[in-house]
């Protein structure tokens, strides 16, 4: 009977089963925890959770992995972890669920990157000579003002994805996850100096890529 019911759940979506999760995703109710635990016990709730958060999390995964195929793998693994551990999540206010899910995705992505590349590949020192001056704040200000409106988000994403894995990972952790160099060093098992140098090189390369895009746009015009 249970399997029959389950089949119904699958084939007749959306099933009229209490989907507590919807309350939670709309903005964490006061008793979010019990709601979440109850919520993911239904198939439709899991689907709701996926539909709501998967696009954002896939964007995050792609930033780390560099390509959509790996990003979808990470998204899949991450969502399984989320589903299995949702009962352990303690809500602390609006948006904390998304933050918690993002943390899981980041950790999953880091594990994925670690499994694919070794440290020597992750932190590629061969391009060190390319970095001439990492302190380009004033120039960057002017340059980035020029860039505004001339480049799409997809192009920006592709620029990040084109970075070497080490640069990309450190840049993502530092800029988007607001990790410190110490935290990055702990997470990646490297020294703080390595983290700093990787970030610096990442910025340099990004600027170079942005410049390239800008020139291309100017020529096209």
């Amino acid at each position, binding site marked *: *009977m*249970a399997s029959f*019911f*389950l089949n119904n759940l*699958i084939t007749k979506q959306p099933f009229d089963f209490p989907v507590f999760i919807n309350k939670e995703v709309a903005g964490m109710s006061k008793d979010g*925890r*019990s709601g979440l*635990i109850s919520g*993911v*016990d*239904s*198939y439709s709730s*899991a*689907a709701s959770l*996926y*539909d709501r958060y*998967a*696009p*954002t999390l*896939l*964007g995050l995964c*792609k930033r780390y992995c560099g390509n*959509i195929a790996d*990003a*979808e793998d990470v*998204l*899949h693994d991450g*969502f*399984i972890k989320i*589903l*299995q551990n949702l*009962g*352990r999540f*303690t809500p602390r206010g609006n948006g904390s669920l998304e933050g918690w899910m993002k943390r899981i995705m980041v950790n999953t992505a880091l*594990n994925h990157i*670690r499994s694919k590349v*070794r*440290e020597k590949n*992750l932190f590629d020192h061969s391009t060190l000579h390319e970095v001439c001056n990492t302190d380009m*704040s004033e120039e*960057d*200000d002017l340059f*980035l003002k020029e*860039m505004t409106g001339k*480049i799409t*988000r997809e192009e*920006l*994403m592709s620029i*990040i994805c084109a970075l070497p894995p080490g640069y990309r990972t450190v840049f993502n952790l*530092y*800029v*988007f996850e*607001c990790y*410190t160099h110490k935290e990055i060093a702990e997470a*990646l*098992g*490297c020294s703080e100096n390595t983290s700093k140098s990787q970030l610096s090189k990442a*910025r340099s390369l*990004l*600027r170079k890529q942005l410049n390239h895009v800008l020139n291309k746009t100017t020529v096209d015009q």
Partner: protein
Amino acid sequence: MKKEPHPIDEFFREALDGYQIAPSEEAKKAFLKYAEGILKNSISIKWWILLLPFAVLIVSIGAFLYLKNVRATGNDKPETYAQKELTKTKNNEVANLPILEEFSSSVHKKEVKQLTTKGYFKISMPIQTNAGSDKKSSENDIRMVMNLLTEEKQAKSIIPASSILPEEIISGQDRVFKPVQNQAPDKPPTEITDTIIKNGVKISGPDTSSVTGLIHNIVLPGPKATHEWRIGTGFYFSPELMFHTIENTKFVTNFGLEGQFCFGRYSIRTGAGISISKGTNQLLVEYNDYLGSYMKLDSMTFTWDERHYYLLPTYFLSSKDVFDSLMKLDDAKIIKRYTYLQIPIILGYNFIQKEKMSFGFRVGPILSVLLKEKTLSGTYDPGKKQVISINEITPEQVNLNWQIMAGLNATFRLSPHIGIEVEPFGKYYFNSVHEPSGGSGKPWSIGLRAAFFISFE
């Protein structure tokens, strides 16, 4: 330490804030297929939870209808003296009325047994007629008994006491008994005494003698005496589903032996039981991967080979493992089985207490003491990895905890000494390591207790 803002960082952060990519349908299907497997077990458990209230509801309705039916049957007929007496004894058991007549040595005997249900009498009438006396009198006596039998048939085997015993006799008044048609007027009246004896104690006095008729003595042994107190022992089994634990939902099996002391509607229950549950001890292991090994040269010596005129080297080597310098994290789970000794002290009160069943509530504390724990999944084996540290994410379960239990109890007596109990209950755990982190509440559980017991009065 506050970070220094960098224009490039700010530019990318702002530009890609809220960036989304729609996942492919294949990815979604793959996830939902996997999720289905995870949720399947929990859904089947939920079905059990959903069925439980229905089972309780059905049992309650059944009990209600049963009791209602019993009451309705008991109220159909007018209450007789004997019934009043039975009511006084607060017991509805069937009375036994052996009616004995002793005039002389018996010529023939008739025995009439009328089995009745509640509120009616089971009558045993050994009838002895005097062979030397008037034959008609004997025949009349027999007819009277036959009349009684006819009444019995009319009443479909259920005869109220008032239909068998004239009210005058039951009430102890002296009357001439004239139920037989052809009784000769010149017959000496048959003496009858209606001494009513219940449980061997004379209720009405012997002065109610000299009644014409057959019945000499009415002995009312009364209902079978039941003690107000009762002790019993039995075996119980109670599966239980815990919620709000560190591992979400947890299934616990309890069974054991218990003793029960009942005093009227009140009861106290205690015993010794075993509670078995599985728990996961989650570990976070930091390690360096094993990459391989090489033979390290420790030392070498040279020996002069005189025949060939060269130095002959001897190498002393030792195996050396090589580990990755990148630290990795591993999430290890060790499944353990915890066996607790449970000592309950449960107090009870029955709202409804009948001969065949009772219905009430039970409440009381339960003490659980850890007896032993057994690792089911095997301990964590790092293999050749170089373990840096092992941290416990979820702690092991505590050695001692207290719970409070409350439930509704339905007891069904299969015989005066044997019965079964069904008891849906809820428990609240006071100090359990099952509880999730964050201090957002204690675990609680629901379950169904089934027990088989033997009682001694």
